[in-house]
């Protein structure tokens, strides 16, 4: 008998076993596909383990944490003014919006309120960061579906908004502009006029995207009826923001709670869509950009004069207590639960970021879809990895 190598023996046994199985019954087994952490479609480092049957997904397991930076813990060794520089980086596309709820929480604990002009400017910058964030989403949507042109239009027009943010704050991505009791500076001269023209450009961008992408037959066939989230399921999974509104829930924290911000002073509309599919989520976001431009335009017209900073002590100590403040951020509900023990820095901060909860629905949502739809659905859920992992 000839001596066989281990490898040969093993392969012989395997082939015999395979033959036997084929003879028994033509039985096929699924394939486990590992999407990510490095993958062109994951906006960062999200890992999705998908079990496939052909092109169909049997189950998925999203696995996050590849970008965990420990912000909640880091805040405990920072003073209150220093924390904004950290939380800027949670949702890096709409940075200013991350600062606001934390500052509001600290102000709530201290029992102070920013002057009216500061509230207006805060709201304007908040909406600008929403526009910058969501307009990139609208462009990126095309890329996820294989159309590459929209994203360049989005980058082009987002640039105008980033220039505005830079003009007002000095930082394009991470303004770090919000202070407890107000803002770092007043607006520069001519900024308001510039904002008006940019808002017109952004509305034209929305029309372009609607023409190029939303009206496209292929886009509609790829998104309509795909990834449907019913109303009650969306509520159960704690979804928020446009994802929730696209499932027909009329819920917007900008309107539904009273914060020392300027949303209640202008006329705007909360858009909802009854379908709950990918198309609805994209459509709601498109309308939100339009509404945001309207909000900014009205605020620019009605901005009051006055100081942008109230009187606060040079060294900020936040009195003992606990506060929860949440706002309607570009990605959904973002909140900070701040526990203070009267020190220079917070004792404990719990950050509730929208993407983590929005993402948690994926195992339920992706069951039974095709592989290409994984990408579409994830794109339409719109998460940012920094916002998931913090």
């Amino acid at each position, binding site marked *: 008998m000839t001596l066989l190598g281990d490898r040969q023996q093993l392969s012989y046994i395997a082939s015999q076993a395979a033959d036997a199985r084929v003879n028994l019954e033509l039985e096929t087994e699924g394939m486990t596909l590992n999407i990510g952490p490095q993958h062109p479609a994951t906006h960062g480092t999200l890992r999705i383990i998908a079990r496939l049957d052909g092109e169909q997904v049997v189950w998925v397991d999203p696995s996050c944490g590849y970008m965990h930076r420990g912000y909640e813990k880091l805040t405990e060794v920072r003073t209150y003014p220093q924390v904004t520089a950290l939380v800027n980086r949670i949702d890096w596309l709409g940075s200013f919006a991350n600062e606001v709820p934390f500052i509001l929480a600290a102000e709530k604990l201290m029992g102070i309120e920013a002057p009216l002009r500061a509230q207006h400017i805060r709201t304007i910058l908040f909406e600008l960061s929403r526009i910058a964030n969501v307009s990139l989403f609208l462009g990126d949507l095309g890329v996820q579906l*294989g*159309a590459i*042109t929209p994203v360049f239009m989005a980058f082009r027009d987002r640039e105008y908004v980033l220039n505005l943010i830079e003009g007002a704050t000095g930082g394009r991505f991470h303004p770090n502009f919000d202070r407890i009791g107000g803002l770092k500076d007043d607006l520069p001269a001519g900024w308001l006029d510039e904002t008006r023209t940019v808002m017109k450009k952004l509305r034209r961008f929305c029309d372009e995207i609607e023409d190029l992408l939303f009206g496209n037959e*292929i886009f509609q066939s*790829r998104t309509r009826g795909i990834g449907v989230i019913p109303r009650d399921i969306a509520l159960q999974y704690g979804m928020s923001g446009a994802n929730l509104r696209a499932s027909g829930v009329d819920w917007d924290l900008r309107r539904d709670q009273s914060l020392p911000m300027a949303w209640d002073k202008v006329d705007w509309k909360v858009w909802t869509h009854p379908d709950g599919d990918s198309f609805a989520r994209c459509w709601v976001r498109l309308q939100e950009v339009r509404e945001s431009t309207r909000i900014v335009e009205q605020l620019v017209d009605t901005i009051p004069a006055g100081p942008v900073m109230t009187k606060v002590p040079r060294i900020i100590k936040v009195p003992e207590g606990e506060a929860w403040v949440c706002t309607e951020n570009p990605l959904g509900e973002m909140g900070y639960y701040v526990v203070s023990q009267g020190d220079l820095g917070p004792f404990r901060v719990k950050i509730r970021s929208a993407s983590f909860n929005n993402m948690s629905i994926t195992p339920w949502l992706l069951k039974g879809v095709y592989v*290409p739809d994984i990408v579409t659905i994830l794109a339409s859920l719109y998460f940012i990895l920094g916002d998931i992992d913090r």
Partner: protein
Amino acid sequence: MMYNFAIDPLLTGKVLWTPLLIVLLKVVVVFAVGLVATMLMVWFERKVIAGMQNRIGPNKAGPFGILQTLADGIKLFFKEDLIPERSDRFVFKLAPYLAFVPAFLTFAIIPLGGDFRGDNDGLVTWFGQQTRVQLADPPIGILFALAISSIAIYGIMLAGWSSGSKYPLLGSVRASAQMVSYEAALGLSVAAVVLVSGTLSTSGIVARQSSLGNWNVIVTGIVPFFIFMIAATAELNRPPFDLVEAEQELVGGFNTEYASLRFALFYLAEFMNTVTMSALIVTLFFGGPQPISVGSLTVDIPIIGNAFEGTIWLLLKVLVFLYIYVWFRATLPRFRYDQLMDLGWKVLIPASLGWFILLAAQRVGQDAGWDRYVVTIATVLILLVCYSLLALAQRTSENERKRDGVMF
């Protein structure tokens, strides 16, 4: 007038040195033109897409960045050659050539020029020999193109299969299904052209389209052209049918594991196929190298001699289709796999088959002297009955699948 196409006058008579050298020259020129055309196509696509997307595009290597592809090629040539450990080494190495060679072979049967004035019929005189500006003119011409494009599938299929990796495997499974099913629609729309031309030879098909009214796009009705265009896009794996290399889902698709020169070969083959397919569309439907002429009026390109004018016309016509392909890429999102299959089997194949039957019935009616309108109405009625039967069958099977709980 006698149609003796498919017989190049160069190759009749005894074997002599001059014809042999001319044929060799043609081979070299066609190969070189193919390579240069591919290079320029890559540059053209990048530049045009850049223009559509508010970008500049390649602008550093050479004038207007025209040498960018060359620079990329050199870079790829010197890169490390990687073969995955779990791959089937022989097939892995073979696959790029299976994709690359057919891309060039198809180019051989395309009429690349010629003198179509007077009674020349596209013949030119080189070194005292009459010949066609075409590497090969086999009597089966267009069938050769279809056969070769079927072989090209193997390159992609084997590349994905032999990589020993999951994304390429998914890509190649898609590729084989997609290309096989679109081949049918492609063939049926070519059949319509063959029907009205009465010849399979590409030079014969070109010679039949001597004036604007005779162009096959008009003679066959516009439908086969559109079907051919769509099926060709799918066959080329270009957007919106580029599921095979869908970057967002499958990373790189079938060529994910390829690097260095082997990747360059795939890349080259893809763009070469685009050029070839555009040339094939022009040949089949738009008169190939024939100048645009209405009645006895022919548009003349000044300065350039008649013998070269055909090449210029071909180039201009091909450019239009290359531009359309680039335009597709810049504009359209991608189909999903099952939607692609639906489009292929439920729309394109029945439509092309129906149109083919309509054309055939017209021909038969003409020969037998039947009334044209009666024939048309009768055929349309029969086709409608067939279509409703098909729709019924589809609905039944859909219901059955729903009952069994299978999604596909």
